[in-house]
């Protein structure tokens, strides 16, 4: 199975910050097939388009997936109304995930705001070999720090207003780590300006970098060509599609 569509029971629901929810979903066949960086496409009752949400945790033993999402508009607001015990309609797992290389000795994971959750499966794989830099608007928006620390990764927290952790953007600690050297890969997800900054730092320091993008999406599987992203492959410009070619791209492929 590459992907499937079905209705699955929500085992747990938790509000983990203002307008940010965590669902744990019982879906053994999806959990068995899912890899870090992939997403699920969730039907919102009363809406034509599904909403793509990144996978935050893959538990093959329990047969569950965890997703963490923010209410961004009416569709995600509708999804957030679902409760423990309700069925959630998912087309999943979708997309091209992160490249995992067990031989890497040091990796840096960077998450901005609601771009933080897809970094958790990577932190679980790399454990103590990973530094996780998270950035949020303020202390109230901070999520998942205990989860990251539990993986053994070093957790570095930044906030835009200095109300928690380092006062500033995620790019500052990343620059310092890059200057120290020894980083095999950087993985990042978050707002486009943040990703652009990270791609530039990795480019300057010649560090392998993968980033996860988002775009308004319809089919989720590469048929409708809705979620276009300007990329460059073999020196040729090409509108790739976030749902199938991505959401994870090599940073140097993306035309900013």
């Amino acid at each position, binding site marked *: 199975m*590459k*992907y*499937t*569509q079905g209705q699955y029971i929500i085992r747990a629901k938790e509000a983990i910050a203002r307008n940010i929810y965590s669902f744990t979903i019982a879906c053994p066949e999806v959990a068995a097939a899912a890899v870090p960086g992939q997403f699920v496409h969730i*039907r919102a009752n009363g*809406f*034509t*388009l*599904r909403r793509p949400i990144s996978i935050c945790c893959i538990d093959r033993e329990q047969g569950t997936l965890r997703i963490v999402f923010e209410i961004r508009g*009416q*569709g995600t607001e509708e999804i957030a109304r679902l409760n423990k015990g309700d069925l959630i309609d998912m*087309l999943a797992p979708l997309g091209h995930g992160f490249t995992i290389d067990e031989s890497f000795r040091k990796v840096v994971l960077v998450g901005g705001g609601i771009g933080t959750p897809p970094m958790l499966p990577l932190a679980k794989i790399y454990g103590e070999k990973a530094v996780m830099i998270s950035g949020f608007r303020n202390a109230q928006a901070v999520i998942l720090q205990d989860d990251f620390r539990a993986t053994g990764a070093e957790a570095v927290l930044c906030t835009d207003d200095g109300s928690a952790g380092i006062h500033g953007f995620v790019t500052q600690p990343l620059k310092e780590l890059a200057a120290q050297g020894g980083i095999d890969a950087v993985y990042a997800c978050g707002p486009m300006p943040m990703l652009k900054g990270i791609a530039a730092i990795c480019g300057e320091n010649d560090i392998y970098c993968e980033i996860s993008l988002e*775009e*308004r*999406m*319809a*089919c*989720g*599987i*590469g*048929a*409708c*060509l*809705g*979620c*276009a*992203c*300007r990329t460059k492959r073999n020196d040729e*410009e*090409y*509108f790739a599609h976030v749902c*199938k070619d991505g959401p994870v791209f090599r940073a140097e492929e993306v035309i900013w």
Partner: protein
Amino acid sequence: MADLSVNVCGVGFKNPIIPASGVFGYGREYEELFPLDKLGGIATKGTTLHRRTGNIAPRIAETPAGMLNSVGLQNPGIDHFIESELPYLLTKDTVILANIAGSTPEECAEVAAKLEDTDVHMIELNISCPNVKQGGAAFGTDCTMAAEVTRRVREATSKNLVVKLSPNVTSITEIAKSVEAAGADAVSLINTLLGMRIDINTGRPVLHNNVGGLSGPAVFPVAVRMVWQVANAVNIPVIGMGGVSSGRDAIELMMAGASAVQVGAAIFTDPFAPVRIVEEMNEFLDSKGIASVRDIIGTVKPW
């Protein structure tokens, strides 16, 4: 089990349901979910003479009971389609409608001519794409241009020629009569309705193309009306589409006069929509004791 088979200008379909051009790519992505032979037919992604990169994102926006798109006919070009996509599709037990488009009547004819030596079952000529600057809707909103491009393609092909019509016109029946007179074997309608959304926080249109095509349940009543009007105005078969999301919708469109039904945006909400709709049509016909779906075509009794 009712007889769901239909016939459109001599081509037999095992059932009336066809995923519409643009939502289904060239079929491979949905084959992961269900066998393609469950479908009456497949209208393939609009294909042009040369590769097209399409429009800048965002290309998609949610709307009340529907969506806007402005993909802009991104496609790999007709040669790639014929070499790499069509042979595979033709191994499937379903009718293949090759949807084609072009910037000029000559380009449309050239694309159609390239399909002449293939075994594709039908050509669906798109004269109604709202998302490209040249050709597209410019052909479909003017009777003279619509007839001209149809005539040029007609001369280039002996395949069954379906012309896909735009609803963004004053009188769709006049356009339909023009393409019938120019040699179309059937018409399909409706393409999307031109629409627009604005993000009021930024003052920017949601779509980078500013405007795009509206589809989904919101347009269904417009589709029913236009299919009914066109079916009463021409003597060639009508393939209906526009906001169909259930078996009941498909039955309604056939009562309005459609001989077959395409399904578009519904597949984004429910990826199994085309096969579910076939099952729902069968249930409805059985519940009414109707032996064949053909018996409902055009049976609306107007007041």
